[in-house]
């Protein structure tokens, strides 16, 4: 067996010459309907807004200026930092961060528990965890809102049990949005951690226990560092979509919990919209996400080189 030689499935199955035609549809679809649109969006963020939505082809930095600087009502005052939008971004990062930590706190024990079941049972547990993800996100969010309402089943049962006197104000709070995000993306946390724990060599834990480490010290000193790639992957998978989420903040939050998704959405609605500003906010969001993804890819490449 020529083990060290490059495997040349291409040569032997005869698809090498067909690579171009086979990939053409993908290139065309994603290239024309995603890459070009994103490039166009970048251009639009430097155009002048038209009042009934749309743009005028005059290049300007107005959209970014509006995002970062306050020049007074008539635009003639000396610029100061505009905190409104930065605060919305900050709140989005905060909400997504809290949701990520919530997912981690629940997702890690769940993933661990599933990965330590007998092999035959794992599939069923994983299936149970993933099924809700495939249920329409809108429906899940609406369901959560229904459950959390002031006169909804949760408050109702708490009151009839006499645990609380009046309804807890759950909807339209930061907590509701965090719960909504947590609920939306929890499986994204469980799956990569599960994959990492499944590959974990439990002899390491036994060795630690043999060397007098307690269960929890072993968890902190041995398990967490070893399965860290899975944890990091899970956090990214929850944090990134949470950052730009629209449904959870829109349906479960109120005016005080306004997030990036809603800010962008507003710019494209009817005559109130501002397309260049919406494009600029989208660009800033995408840049933020790309930075996170690139940092992650770098860290992963570094970890791979080390091992």
């Amino acid at each position, binding site marked *: 067996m020529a083990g060290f030689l490059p495997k040349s499935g291409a040569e032997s199955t005869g698809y090498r010459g067909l690579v171009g035609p*086979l990939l053409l549809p993908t290139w065309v679809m994603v290239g024309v309907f995603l890459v070009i649109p994103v490039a166009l969006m970048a251009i639009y963020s430097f155009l002048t807004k038209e009042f009934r939505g749309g743009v005028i082809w005059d290049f300007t930095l107005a959209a970014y200026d509006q995002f970062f600087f306050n020049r007074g009502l008539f635009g003639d005052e000396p610029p100061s930092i505009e905190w409104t939008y930065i605060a919305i971004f900050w709140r989005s990062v905060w909400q997504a961060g809290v949701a990520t930590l919530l997912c981690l706190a*629940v997702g890690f024990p769940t993933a661990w*528990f599933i990965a330590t079941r007998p092999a035959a049972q794992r599939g069923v547990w994983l*299936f149970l965890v993933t099924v809700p993800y*495939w*249920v329409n996100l809108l429906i899940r969010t609406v369901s959560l*809102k229904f459950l959390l309402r002031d006169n909804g089943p949760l408050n109702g049962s708490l009151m009839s049990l006499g645990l609380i006197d009046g309804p807890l104000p759950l909807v339209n709070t930061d907590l509701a949005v965090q719960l909504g995000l947590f609920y939306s993306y929890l499986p994204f946390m469980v799956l990569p951690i599960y994959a990492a724990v499944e590959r974990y060599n439990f002899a390491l834990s036994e060795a630690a226990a043999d060397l007098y480490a307690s269960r929890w010290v072993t968890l902190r000193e041995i398990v967490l560092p070893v399965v860290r790639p899975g944890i990091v992957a899970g956090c990214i998978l929850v944090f990134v979509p949470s950052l*730009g989420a629209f449904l959870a903040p829109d349906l479960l939050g109120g005016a005080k919990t306004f997030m990036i998704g809603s800010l962008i959405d507003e710019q494209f609605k009817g005559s109130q919209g501002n397309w260049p500003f919406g494009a600029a906010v*989208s660009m800033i969001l995408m840049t933020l996400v790309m930075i996170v993804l690139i940092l992650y890819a770098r860290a992963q490449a570094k970890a791979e080189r080390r091992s």
Partner: protein
Amino acid sequence: MKGVRHYPGFLAMTIGCLVVLYAPLIVVTVYSFNGSTSITQWGGFSWRWYADVFTGPEAPRFAAAAWNSLTIAVLAATAATAIATAAAVAMVRGGRFRGKSATFALINLPLMVPEIVTAVATLIFFSAIGLTTGYLTILIAHVTFCIPFAYLPIAARLEGIESSYEQAARDLYATRAQAFRLILLPLMAPGIISGFLLAFIISLDDFIITNFVKGAGMETLPTAIFGSVKQGIKPNIMAISTMMLAVSVLFVTLSYFINRSGQKTRA
């Protein structure tokens, strides 16, 4: 003495996790059978809201939205699956070629760009080229973002199929086309079906992008439901939600079992 695998409280967390995941869905399902007009009071078991969905005043609107959702999902999933199957064969069986990693990034791009950004970019693109937003624009957008979802299970399946099966077929006088049709395609089938089902659910699920590129007067089920719940959650919405929930669960269960049986024949 319990083994090193055991951590106290982890079982409770897992159960808690499942309760959180399922409680809202179960509550909505239960209340969709509520006989009372009030969504707070329990008025006994009844099918009245299901009847309302099909015959009530909003029935034509829901029927049109459901038709749009369903046909778009079928068309988008079919197109995305075909495109992804071709791409998977090239990526997995095409050896090393120039631009391979760029192509890989391209396939996964719809997963990396935040949904709302895709929505904005797509809207801007269609408005710039002067394509009126409507059924066609929704369909195009759905095909694009469904590609990676269809690709993942297909490519994973294909990677698990040794190339020696196709070589054996070629050795036994099959042409390249015959080897593909008689050997590779049947072996890939579970992955292709899985990919199709995932793409179908993803298309059915989409709200944000659809909402941006649908244009006036055009509705899919999610946008219709969203429009309704903005005025408050009504029982007929819960009935629709329960039906969609049932469809999703059915599809995922199907996909799960198809994948499992696929693994069995592979062994």
